[in-house]
């Protein structure tokens, strides 16, 4: 039974690892190590729930666990600032690392949002989930999820107004 469960579980994890890690990274505001910890913990929970959710929607289960754990860890501890030895270089115009800098700026702006608003924005615009599924993942009514998403987008619009411009 354990082997049967591990086989299906391994296939799922191997197929969805990259996407889950990307969502977790956005949920944590760009912290790769913390995102990997979150994915690991969510997959451990999924392993114990695998017989129940394997035939239904394991990715929705992991997504819900990820959102709740990200919100809980954000309340538990301050993760946003870490001391470094050297300041990172800023990307200039036309730099080949402009895309990386743009993503870093998006992650930094996401880190400034409250956890619920951040989760609503990520699930809505990164996972392309409808409002009903966003509300289910957040564990709140649809209207509340819509409010979180709209407030988060408004805050991001304010933060990224000078960087997110269509390239002409």
């Amino acid at each position: 039974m354990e082997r049967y469960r591990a086989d299906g579980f391994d296939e799922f994890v191997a197929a969805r690892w990259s996407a889950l890690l990307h969502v977790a990274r956005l949920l944590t505001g760009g912290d790769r190590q913390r995102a990997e910890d979150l994915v690991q913990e969510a997959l451990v929970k999924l392993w114990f729930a695998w017989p129940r959710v394997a035939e239904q929607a394991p990715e929705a289960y992991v997504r819900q666990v990820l959102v709740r754990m990200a919100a809980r860890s954000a309340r538990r501890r301050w993760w946003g600032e870490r001391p470094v030895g050297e300041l990172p270089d800023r990307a200039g115009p036309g730099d080949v690392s402009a895309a990386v800098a743009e993503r870093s700026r998006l992650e930094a702006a996401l880190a400034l949002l409250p956890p619920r608003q951040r989760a609503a924005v990520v699930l809505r615009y990164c996972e392309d989930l409808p409002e009903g599924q966003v509300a289910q993942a957040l564990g709140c009514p649809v209207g509340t999820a819509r409010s979180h998403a709209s407030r988060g987008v408004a805050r991001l619009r304010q933060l990224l107004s000078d960087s997110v411009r269509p390239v002409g």
Partner: protein
Amino acid sequence: MDDFERELTRLMHDGRRHAPFEPGQRARLYEGIRVRRRSRVLWRAGGSALAVAGLGIGLALLPGTGTRSLPADRPPLPATSPTPPPLSPVPTSPAASTSLPATGMPGTTAPGHAAPPTFPPSGTPDASPSATHTPSSPPVSTRPPDTPPATQEATQEATQEVSPSMTAGGG
């Protein structure tokens, strides 16, 4: 969806990179599963032990469990009762056997029973004369009033001799 939201969607999708599930991450994942399973087993064992201990303590502290007394289990009553058993027919002295009806109060007690509530304590020698010879006391005794004083003294002495034996026998 306006331009900003479309650009936001593009930014979020562009940042997605393929990250393979490496063997080190797999080993770490299964190590986490083992640790979680062990902790769950320990929690369950601890919870069961606590439940059993709580149940045992609760059963032990229930009132009357194990020490419930039935009427048949009660020990016999002690011999110290207000009505001591009747005296043995063998008299200890002739004076005591003859003076008991005189010092007792046959009018207030049933035959064969002494009267401790109205009988003066035998350990107080000065109390019995005052109680028996008080002029204002009601005439509860049927003793004839013309008893000579010598007989009364002999009666009191006999009472003092008999009373300890009665209390000893009664107690």
